[in-house]
């Protein structure tokens, strides 16, 4: 008899991970179904993604794999869908590391007539729910250290405050993109509490991407990022609904790409036209593989990806 190929052995060893992922997916779907969200599926290959200065798309046919399902989901918001979610694959070129894989699973959900704080309440309830389901409690151990997804333990820190405290400057006052990224990973992120979810909130306007500026403070945008133990888990916005401002930001992102010698991306005119119809909304993208990594007590994404690439 021929021995089974090594690949089969390797995959068989991933049985526990396959089961955990299936349970996580089921839990996420039940969570949103119970709250009246509609699950949607939007195309994986697109003629245009949202241009972003630091996100490279993977070419596919005449277009690209989606870097996020965001634009299509916003067209659904504009079409009158008020609460929608999607769980599916996205791809980003060149991202490979302990917490990066070029193909990964994003969970995105959107609420019409709501903003980033309503999305924050959803996120708190969701994380408590998945921890309860997969670990039997909101408090559990990740890589030998206690962590808690208990809703009352979440911490919130304004980006400006965190930077003033840990890096000595306010990025909303005089923005410097290079210094921001470097200080974020070397000074701010390492200083965040590691045992509970931490939300960095209200980003400098130049980092708004697809978020609206704060009505009473245009130097800052209504955007938050969720961290757990140094791992960035999610990015949420009060969505920008002004087509002219959105177009200007896409053009600016392309200009930054061009400055680095990278190709600009085409603009999605269907999306930009639909944006005028979109109600004020809140939305979020959450990295499902990273969440699974923490819940499965894995050290890196490699531990929860049976089919690795590179």
């Amino acid at each position, binding site marked *: 008899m021929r021995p089974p190929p090594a690949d089969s052995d390797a995959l068989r060893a991933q049985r526990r991970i396959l089961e955990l992922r299936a349970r996580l997916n089921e839990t996420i779907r039940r969570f949103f179904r119970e709250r009246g969200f509609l699950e949607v599926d939007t195309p994986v290959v697109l003629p245009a993604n949202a241009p972003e200065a630091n*996100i490279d798309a993977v070419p596919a046919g005449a277009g690209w794999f989606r870097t996020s399902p965001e634009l299509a989901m916003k067209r659904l918001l504009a079409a009158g869908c008020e609460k929608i979610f999607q769980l599916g694959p996205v791809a980003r070129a060149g991202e490979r590391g302990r917490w990066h894989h070029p193909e990964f699973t994003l969970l995105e959900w959107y609420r019409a007539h709501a903003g980033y704080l309503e999305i924050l309440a959803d996120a708190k309830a969701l994380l408590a729910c998945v921890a309860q389901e997969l670990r039997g409690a909101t408090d559990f151990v990740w890589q030998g250290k206690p962590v808690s997804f208990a809703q009352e333990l979440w911490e919130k820190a304004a980006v400006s405050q965190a930077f003033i405290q840990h890096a000595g400057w306010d990025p909303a006052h005089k923005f410097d993109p290079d210094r921001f*990224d470097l200080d974020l990973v070397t000074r701010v992120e390492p200083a965040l509490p590691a045992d509970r979810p931490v939300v960095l909130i209200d980003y400098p306007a130049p980092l708004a991407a697809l978020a609206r500026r704060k009505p009473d403070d245009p130097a800052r945008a209504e955007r938050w990022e969720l961290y757990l133990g140094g791992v960035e888990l999610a990015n949420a916005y009060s969505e920008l609904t002004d087509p002219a401002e959105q177009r200007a930001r896409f053009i600016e992102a392309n200009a930054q790409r061009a400055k680095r010698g990278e190709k600009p991306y085409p603009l999605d005119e269907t999306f930009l036209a639909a944006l005028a119809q979109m109600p004020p909304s809140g939305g979020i993208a959450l990295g499902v593989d990273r969440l699974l990594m923490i819940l499965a007590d894995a050290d890196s994404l490699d531990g929860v990806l049976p089919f690795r690439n590179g």
Partner: protein
Amino acid sequence: MSYTAADLRKGLKIELEGIPYEVTDFEFVKPGKGQAMYKCRIKNMLIGSTMDKTFRAVDKIDQPNIESKTMAFSYKEGDKYVFMDNKTYEQVELHEDVVGDQRFFLLEDLECEVLFFNHRAMSVTLPSFVIKEIKETEPGARGNTATNVLKPAKIDTGYEVGVPIFINQGDFIRIDTRTGKYVERVKLG
């Protein structure tokens, strides 16, 4: 010559502000909408200290001019150790601090790898194993071949090494220069 951040990997030797470093650890990071970066731990090859350094994907990193040459240990003078290229008779000196604990295992004519940074001798690496004579130890118990019980013994440089009970003064032993530990007894001749 220069590297880009994408070339970074464990073991890569780089130059920063005129100092050669070796990358001992690195991790790809990319905050949310931010740029790709490489968080590295780097070791100063001149003094051995380590530090953290984060490079952006767009950073250019200098490649240090490092050469390696096989040279024989010649003699010690004060706190300097002199090595010689047996073909060209070129001599270089290395300070005791740079040679470190390896100095205990040097033997005359022992061939070592000397690293040069910008043509100046920077460090030396001994062969992994050297043979040394036991100069001083309690007499061995004949027939006791246990290797798990150790007693202290001194070699010519005054270095004290744990050896099995059966080792006697005048015996030759193999020592691992990386750990400073006894490996085995050696019969010479």
